[in-house]
């Protein structure tokens, strides 16, 4: 069920068709997106697993993922790029900052200090640069993790519940930041969320996932 949003010009496009199983859980989905998109579904629907599969962190039973004309994995052709070669920006749930590094150290882990500072500035977190990752608040952690995901100019951005654990003020701020950042990027992105308010504020097509299957896709 490869849904085509046909009118859009063939800019950066993510095309996913994957199947995998972990114990009793099976994931089998196919979709294609070319801009900011929401991924929605109940707990255990397989949202995070789907992100991990796209990232190359979960072995597939079968599948093909292409991103901007580049094949990341194709089980029929024996192609399977490792995570470090896929150029995907990822913010896991809870941000998963490196706790022994500063905010700047986190972003500069895979980039120059100058690029890292620019990325921090882009998300309004330059003033946190020399703060230890351990002492950052929830909203600050999400900003730094977003900078870290953006610093290498990824071809795809995956955000796993970036707004879920935030207080209302931080949530509103980060919503605004995400809205401007995602539309300015011109790359496909998947944002996992449960919140109708987030979807209304950010706007974009929705992929509904339930029990490892697509319920609705753009």
């Amino acid at each position: 069920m490869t849904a085509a949003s046909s009118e859009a010009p063939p800019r950066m496009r993510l095309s996913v068709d994957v199947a995998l199983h972990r114990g009793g859980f099976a994931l089998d989905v196919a979709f294609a997106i070319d801009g900011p998109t929401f991924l929605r579904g109940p707990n255990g629907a397989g949202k995070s697993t789907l992100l991990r599969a796209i990232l190359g962190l979960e072995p597939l039973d079968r599948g093909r993922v292409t991103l901007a004309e580049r094949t990341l994995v194709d089980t029929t052709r024996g192609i399977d790029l490792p995570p470090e070669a896929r150029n995907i920006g990822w913010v896991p749930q809870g941000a998963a900052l490196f706790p022994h590094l500063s905010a700047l150290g986190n972003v500069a882990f895979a980039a120059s200090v100058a690029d890292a500072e620019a990325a921090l500035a882009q998300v309004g977190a330059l003033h946190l640069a020399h703060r230890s990752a351990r002492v950052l608040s929830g909203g600050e952690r999400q900003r730094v993790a977003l900078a870290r995901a953006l610093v290498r100019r990824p071809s795809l951005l995956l955000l796993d519940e970036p707004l879920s654990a935030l207080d209302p003020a931080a949530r509103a701020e980060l919503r605004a930041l995400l809205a401007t950042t995602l539309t300015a990027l011109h790359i496909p992105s998947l944002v996992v969320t449960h919140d109708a308010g987030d979807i209304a504020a950010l706007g974009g097509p929705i992929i509904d996932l339930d029990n490892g299957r697509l319920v609705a896709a753009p």
Partner: protein
Amino acid sequence: MRPVSRPEQSAAAASPSGRPLRRRERRLALVLGLPLLVLLTVPLVGLVFYAGPSALIAGLAHPATTQALLLSLATSLAALLVVIVLGTPLAWWLARGGRGTGLVETLVDLPVVLPPAVLGLALLLVLGREGMFGKLLGLELAFTPAAVVLVQVVVAAPFFIQSATAAFRALDPEQLAVARTLGARPAKVFMRIALPLARGGLLAGALLAWARALGEFGATLLFAGNFPGTTQTLPIAIYTALEVDPRAAQAMAMVLLVTALVLLLSVRLLGGSARVVR
């Protein structure tokens, strides 16, 4: 996945009737445990009192001690190096879990519970001059300093591997995965994320392993013998000196006691969670 206490458990802990142990019960437990505590500490306090702090100075200055101490330091540090270099990758593999790790962990733990005499005998049978591999390879390993190191590696490795495995297991797999998606190969993820975050546990394990190597006695005596200058480590020198020069034995014992105390305090300062026995 991190263990999360179930709500009903935390609710029980919070209610006044479910308090863990009241003050009187705790005092009773301490009184019941006191004899053991006395037994654990009195011999060592007695040694310090009997030998006196001056024995430590005299012990360090005694020529027989110096020779044994230097041999002990050289062999135990060599053993520690081997344990860290080979034990770290093994601990990393164990920490990832999966098929076969349970069995390997049991094998790794075995030297901790095995009587040293059994270990020394086994090493002689396998690697001694007349042993299985000794004969085959023409090895002259037994009764050399290399034999001392080998024994220390075997007895010390479990302590490092246990602590390092626990430290690696405590890492957040999501952080390691993020590092991969940022373009880092597994080796870089290990060096820049895993090692720094597991450093406390690795250091604590190394100190415990070193202490165990320094104190090794029984298996060394069987497999490496008791030759001053080549295989007579400090614990064996104590055993030897006991009959001819008890003051020297006490002095050397003081040296080892102080070393052990310093090592243990260092382990506690490094995080306190590392225990000699899991």
